[in-house]
């Protein structure tokens, strides 16, 4: 049997490439990160009567330069992994622009097939293509498809397989760049090919074009100063003769080829399809109405995430609580208490405490997928760009920051939509300052314990506001220090509005759910076990068997490592007005912020505690002042991102050091501010 054929899918963003990929592979996909970068590459298996193939979905790009990680990944895959066939997905209702990438694939001389996607939409608009003639001009097969309806997908697969097996001729045309550029290429090309074989010559031609375009990635392959001098001379000469940079001259020839091909092979121009989109835009990005509509839609997202995702989350919470009780109870046996506690408090308490948010996560990503697939997301970024620009951020950063009020984990995952790494890291680092839902129980416990009813709402509001103000300040500081540089220019295509497909939405939601499940099963599990061990060892004398082994009691906890660490922390946290009890609870809060409340309950041995526990509040009032209470909230707001946040920052940024920086920076800031507030409060006599 011959080895499995690899087909690579490329195409512009919004070309319907992903839909086509889903049609080809169904749910048989898996996601892999390309080594070294965090750009995702999906691949799946595809079987049909014509044969089987491995289909790789490359990131959506506009061009084959090497400025963005997506472009670099695509190029490295096309050149390095040498797929047997490349399918470039082209939106036929926006043919001219989408053919720009197709021409560049053609220049690469790859075994190429063009998928003329959304051909049904184009036909409905009265567009007619002379596919035979276009195919002859490009020198590659062209297959009309409709990803949403699944039309043409088998034909596309057959064509790609035939090209891969060299059963069907595929000789990508050679693009001529005009007299001046060709003269320069003739000078450079001989220096790049070792021998005169045809493959070498066409590759050398492509390399020469890329060097003329001053492509940084290709220069890395040729660190020869003599070559550099030659190319620089040719570039200068070209610029002088043609009055523009070589990049622009070459791009102009590509577009020239395309408009020539289109005027010959396409009847009727492509103006009408925007009529409907423009009418919708007249309202959705209106200078007055755009913002309120955006805010309303955002509110709807929150509503769906918490109201619709809420009940299933509660069911899961109950389910895990029941499982915990079942694990703790059962037949009492000597020695098994420790294992039970491990299972109940370590595994179920830790992993379960995170897993229960799965319904929220699924709802959140489905909502985002709807906004993205309809084309609204680009408009949201457009509306928010002015405001975010003042913070040194991109309009697209707004959505992740907003999601941070729900939970930092999906918010940090949502920074994937940001193209610039600087923007992405800045946004990621400040997201924990948006007060997440898990911090709410802490406020809900403390505010009523110390503050009269009239003060409660304003104090809560102030806490949230403090987070936002600090986020703004941090973003500005980060952009001026660590992530200095030009603010990413705001350049974005506004794709026409489209109706999302159910299959696409479902796959999107499942994708993110899978990510989340994987994380709960690995990183969170490990952290939970560590925290459990800290709170359980060394064991005090075994309590007399038989009684239900509630989680650790106060003296036990004081004896445990967690308790000892709390004691050891006391001198450090003293300036903030915290004692060892709060120190121990803070340690627990690292697992998840809401654990702080449960941990305080354990410390004060008032049994099961939740945020509405009156006995716990009474004990708090005995020991602490309102100033202490305020300081706890400030510290929990700013510092100590929970372990799920740390873990997701690590995976999303691709390096532990960013997670460590986030943790250190925020905790340091929290320490500083809390100490200032406490000491100032003390001086003022509170």
């Amino acid at each position, binding site marked *: 049997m011959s080895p499995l054929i690899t087909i690579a899918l490329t195409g512009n963003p919004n070309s319907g490439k992903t839909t086509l990929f889903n049609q080809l592979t169904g749910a048989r996909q898996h996601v892999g990160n390309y080594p070294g970068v965090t750009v995702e590459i999906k691949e799946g298996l595809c079987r049909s009567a014509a044969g089987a193939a491995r289909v790789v979905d490359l990131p959506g790009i506009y061009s084959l330069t090497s400025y963005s990680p997506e472009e670099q990944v695509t190029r490295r895959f096309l050149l390095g992994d040498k797929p047997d066939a490349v399918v470039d997905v082209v939106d036929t209702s926006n043919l001219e*622009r989408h053919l720009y990438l197709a021409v560049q694939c053609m220049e690469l001389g790859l075994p190429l097939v063009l998928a003329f996607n959304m051909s049904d939409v184009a036909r409905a608009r009265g567009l007619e293509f002379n596919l035979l003639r276009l195919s002859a001009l490009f020198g590659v097969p062209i297959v009309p498809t409709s990803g949403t309806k699944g039309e043409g997908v088998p034909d596309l697969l057959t064509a790609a397989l035939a090209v891969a097996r060299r059963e069907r001729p595929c000789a990508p045309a050679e693009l001529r760049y005009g007299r001046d550029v060709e003269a320069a290429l003739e000078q450079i090309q001989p220096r790049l090919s070792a021998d005169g074989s045809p493959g070498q010559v066409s590759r050398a031609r492509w390399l020469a074009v890329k060097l003329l375009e001053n492509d940084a990635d290709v220069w890395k392959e040729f660190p020869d100063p003599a070559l550099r001098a030659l190319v620089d001379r040719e570039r200068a000469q070209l610029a002088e003769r043609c009055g523009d940079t070589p990049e622009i001259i070459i791009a*102009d020839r590509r577009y020239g080829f395309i408009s020539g091909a289109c005027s010959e092979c396409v009847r009727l121009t492509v103006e009408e399809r925007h009529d409907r989109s423009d009418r919708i835009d007249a309202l959705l990005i209106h200078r007055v109405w755009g913002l309120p509509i955006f805010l309303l839609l955002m509110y709807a997202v929150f509503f769906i995430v918490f109201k619709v995702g809420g009940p299933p989350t509660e069911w899961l919470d109950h389910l895990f609580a029941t499982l915990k009780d079942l694990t703790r109870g059962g037949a009492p046996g000597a020695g098994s208490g420790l294992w039970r506690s491990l299972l109940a408090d370590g595994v179920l308490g830790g992993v379960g405490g995170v897993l229960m948010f799965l319904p929220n996560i699924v709802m959140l990503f489905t909502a985002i997928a709807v906004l993205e697939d309809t084309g609204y997301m680009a408009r949201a970024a457009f509306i928010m760009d*002015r405001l975010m620009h003042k913070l040194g951020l991109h309009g697209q950063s707004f959505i992740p920051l907003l999601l941070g009020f729900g939970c930092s984990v999906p918010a940090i995952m949502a920074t994937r939509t940001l193209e610039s790494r600087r923007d992405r890291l800045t946004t990621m680092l400040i997201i924990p300052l948006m007060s997440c839902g898990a911090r709410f129980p802490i406020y809900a416990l403390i505010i009523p314990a110390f503050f009269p009813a009239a003060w409660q709402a304003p104090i809560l509001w102030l806490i949230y506001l403090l987070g936002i103000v600090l986020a703004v300040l941090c973003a500005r500081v980060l952009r001026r220090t660590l992530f200095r540089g030009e603010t990413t220019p*705001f350049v974005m295509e506004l*794709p026409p509005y489209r109706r999302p497909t159910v299959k696409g939405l479902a796959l999107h939601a499942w994708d993110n759910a899978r990510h989340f499940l994987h994380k709960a099963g690995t990183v969170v599990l490990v952290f939970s076990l560590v925290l459990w061990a800290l709170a359980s060892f060394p064991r005090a004398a075994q309590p007399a068997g038989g009684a239900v082994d509630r989680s650790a009691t106060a003296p036990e906890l004081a004896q445990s490592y967690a308790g000892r660490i709390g004691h050891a922390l006391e001198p450090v946290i003293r300036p903030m007005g915290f004692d060892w009890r709060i120190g121990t609870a803070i340690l627990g809060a690292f697992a998840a912020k809401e654990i702080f409340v449960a941990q305080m309950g354990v410390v004060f041995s008032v049994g099961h505690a939740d945020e509405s526990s009156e006995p716990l509040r009474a004990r708090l009032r005995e020991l602490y002042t309102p100033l202490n209470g305020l300081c706890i909230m400030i510290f929990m707001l700013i510092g100590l991102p929970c372990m799920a946040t740390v873990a997701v920052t690590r995976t999303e940024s691709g390096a532990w050091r960013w997670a460590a920086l986030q943790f250190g920076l925020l905790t340091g800031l929290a320490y500083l501010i809390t100490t200032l507030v406490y000491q100032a409060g003390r001086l003022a006599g509170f």
Partner: protein
Amino acid sequence: MAGLAGSPALRARLVSLGLLPGTVVTILRRQGRGPLVLEVRGSRVALGRAVARHIQVVPAGDATLRRT
């Protein structure tokens, strides 16, 4: 469009979206000092003001500047 300035990366990005000298663009929407929406080769592109500053335009129909 008459000219394109800015960093190589920015220019490459604009070119890949179809914005290069000689292209006819239509400004569809401009909001105070906020971003613009352009019509370029049949698609809609949003540009921040900082980006738009790098694009030099002349009124269309000025045949001397059309390269096509």
